[in-house]
């Protein structure tokens, strides 16, 4: 049973460019959350998708947008890249009804984005 997968592993972009990161949730999970983890920091919540809609959003500008597909996979898009967008981007999935599991999230290995 595959866990959460993300692609690509690493990415180098130039300021002003646009980037798309991809995530496939763990089997049986239908909710996907995205986090930004700057070097030496904890993950910061970007947004969460369920039923192909953005359900919650953290304190990130509109340059950050996303999408969820019918197969529950998700994309994170960042437009007009800034140097400060350089970070590890983590995807986490969870089942909508977690029973007694506290809605815990399972994380992917992340995509390292470097903006030059």
């Amino acid at each position: 049973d595959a866990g959460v997968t993300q692609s690509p592993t690493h990415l180098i972009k130039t300021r002003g460019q646009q980037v798309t990161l991809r995530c496939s949730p763990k089997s049986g999970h239908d909710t996907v959350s995205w986090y930004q983890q700057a070097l030496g920091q904890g993950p910061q919540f970007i947004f969460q998708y369920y039923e192909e809609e953005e359900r919650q959003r953290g304190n990130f500008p509109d340059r950050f947008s996303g999408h969820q597909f019918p197969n529950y996979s998700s994309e994170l898009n960042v437009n007009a890249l800034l140097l400060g967008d350089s970070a590890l981007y983590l995807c986490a999935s969870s089942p909508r009804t977690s029973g007694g599991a506290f809605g815990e999230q399972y994380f992917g290995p992340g995509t390292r984005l470097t903006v030059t």
Partner: protein
Amino acid sequence: AQTVTQSQPEMSVQEAETVTLSCTYDTSENNYYLFWYKQPPSRQMILVIRQEAYKQQNATENRFSVNFQKAAKSFSLKISDSQLGDTAMYFCAFKLGRNNFNKFYFGSGTKLNVKP
């Protein structure tokens, strides 16, 4: 607003010894969940242990246990019989309620080095 604070940026422990990582949080809510995640150099975030706020009994998972002090808003992680594989960043995380749509708040992490 919810905040999570980890005041120990880095800690070291000898193999087979015991170490305690500190975490405090701030919330005005009564229904929430607390987690410790481990992030080894491979970057994959792994759930270590979890605790429901309404349970007074401290959670334990093999060599990992927590000291949950609700009144003090403290949630420390004790690792017994430390192993070299425990070397990683450890993040304390907080989630409101049981609904899957609630986002996770993370602390800034503690880097744990287990020395042979």
